[in-house]
């Protein structure tokens, strides 16, 4: 019996390890490729470690695309989007979880419904609205909608807000605090972990978004990093060392955030998935 359990555990570890290698391997391959020269990449047999570590692939990225500018553009959109969701999503969630009013009951089912709505269904009329407002070509069409609380974040925050004891809110009200004061001074500070998750996910989503910028931004000086990478790919298809270096530099901010806030990532993910 004991030895059977041992082999079972051994098998579990073996599978977990092999899958782990399959998951981390491609990422390592990205790093290794980013350090290889074009000659090495386009010769056979395929080498694992670079013959010569070509660190200047990273500096060369700045020569072939205006990486700094794209980085800055992406950062502006991302920071404003994070602000948008962090301002709007908790407000709306508060209204449907902690205020007794007629909308509290029917907003959430609609939120769930819109969560299931494919982006493409509303894409064209929304584009035409922004075109009418002469805002296409700039960042506002990407930023303004984030101030209207994305369904996923309402969903995530609702899980968290429902766990906050109502007695706290009643106590504040008895002390004469207004609804806004209660929200601002009590509910928001208590929700910091959930708000961090919303901030992180918005950052991740906006930083990585491709379709949004593809629709609205056409002037290459305003490109985000995803658009820049795509344009670079279309023109320099074979320069995989540079492409991998650029991809890594693009991914780096997210990896940094991940290692600082791993707990919030994991908890946030669980919050969005638990309970149908």
């Amino acid at each position: 019996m004991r030895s059977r359990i041992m082999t079972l555990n051994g098998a579990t570890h073996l599978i977990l390890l092999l899958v782990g290698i399959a998951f981390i391997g491609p990422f390592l391959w990205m790093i290794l490729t980013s350090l290889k020269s074009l000659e090495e990449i386009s010769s056979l047999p395929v080498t694992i470690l670079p013959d010569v570590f070509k660190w200047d692939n990273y500096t060369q990225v700045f020569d072939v695309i205006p990486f700094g500018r794209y980085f800055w553009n992406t950062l502006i959109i991302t920071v404003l989007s994070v602000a948008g969701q962090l301002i709007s999503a908790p407000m709306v969630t508060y209204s449907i979880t902690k205020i007794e009013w007629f909308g509290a009951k029917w907003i959430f089912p609609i939120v769930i419904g819109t969560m299931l709505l494919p982006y493409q269904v509303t894409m064209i009329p929304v584009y035409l609205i922004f075109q009418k407002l002469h805002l296409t070509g700039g960042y506002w069409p990407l930023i303004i909608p984030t101030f209207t609380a994305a369904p996923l974040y309402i969903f995530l925050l609702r899980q968290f807000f429902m766990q906050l004891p109502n007695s706290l809110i009643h106590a504040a009200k008895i002390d004469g605090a207004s609804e806004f004061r209660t929200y601002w001074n009590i509910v928001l500070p208590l929700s910091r972990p959930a708000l961090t998750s919303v901030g992180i996910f918005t950052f991740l989503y906006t930083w990585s978004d491709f379709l949004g910028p593809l629709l609205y931004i056409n002037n290459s000086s305003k490109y985000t990093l995803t658009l820049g990478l795509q344009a670079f790919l279309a023109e320099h298809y074979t320069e995989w060392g540079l492409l991998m270096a650029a991809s890594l530099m693009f991914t780096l901010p997210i990896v940094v955030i991940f290692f600082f806030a791993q707990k919030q990532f994991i908890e946030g993910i669980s919050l969005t998935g638990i309970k149908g």
Partner: protein
Amino acid sequence: MKKNLTGLAFASPWIVGFLVFTLYPLGASFYYGLTDFNVFQSPKFVGLDNYSELMRDDLFWKSVRNTLYLTVISTPVNLIFSLLMALLLNRRIRGLSWYRTVYYIPTIIPLAATSLLWMWIMNAQYGLLNAMLGRLGLPQPNWLADPALTKASLVLMGLWGVGNIIIIFLASLQEVPRSLYESASIDGAGAFRSFLNITLPTISPIILFQLIMQVINNLQYFTQAYFIVSSTNLNAGTSGGPENSMLMYAMYLYHNAFQYFKMGKASAMAWILFVIAGAITWLIFRSSKRWVSYGGGD
């Protein structure tokens, strides 16, 4: 009354967003779908012409088939693989947080970078995948250029990004009360029986939710295919990859709207997608009454 006003004030960002960015566009795209509309001139009512044009459009059907194929293969593959990994991780093993981190990392890498990376790994001549297959003496297919293999390659790519589903499943497995298993094992139930009778029913609401989100996301599949197709070396003059085998529904819709400026036709496609997504979700929900259990261990 005052409560209603405060509630309304707090909910106003969402209400405005819902009206302007969801409800109005939903109606407007239905109307545009019935018009001939190229952005430069105002829409002209043509009835169901766009829909009958789509029915006769081979590329439309190609994109429908490609997208359904991907959805039907990728969804169960991703869910079953994630569940298996979560079950293994849930065996109170050592190094859990390490494994969890390793599985999760690919999901935070932007799809743009993921697509580039896998294009390189699946490169027929210099790619890592074929180098490994060659070492093992196996055939080295042209993953992204052989129309018979392109979608399978996309499924494989997708499998790399299931870390968040693994974590969600793991979190829900950890919430299954241990006492349920203990009483089952006293009743003489083996590991497989308790999986069928306890684990699956308890986490079924989460599986349902992930199933629906996977289907909806796959129906919108865009970025990866768009990236692969935009490396012009791979596609000989088509915009949907080799023999249009990677022409996804969302891509064809995008082409119609923003490259050919056929906003009417694209809007008709948007509404067809709306109906298909709605119908599939409804069917899953309806069937779920039979396999999802609420209450009990929840």
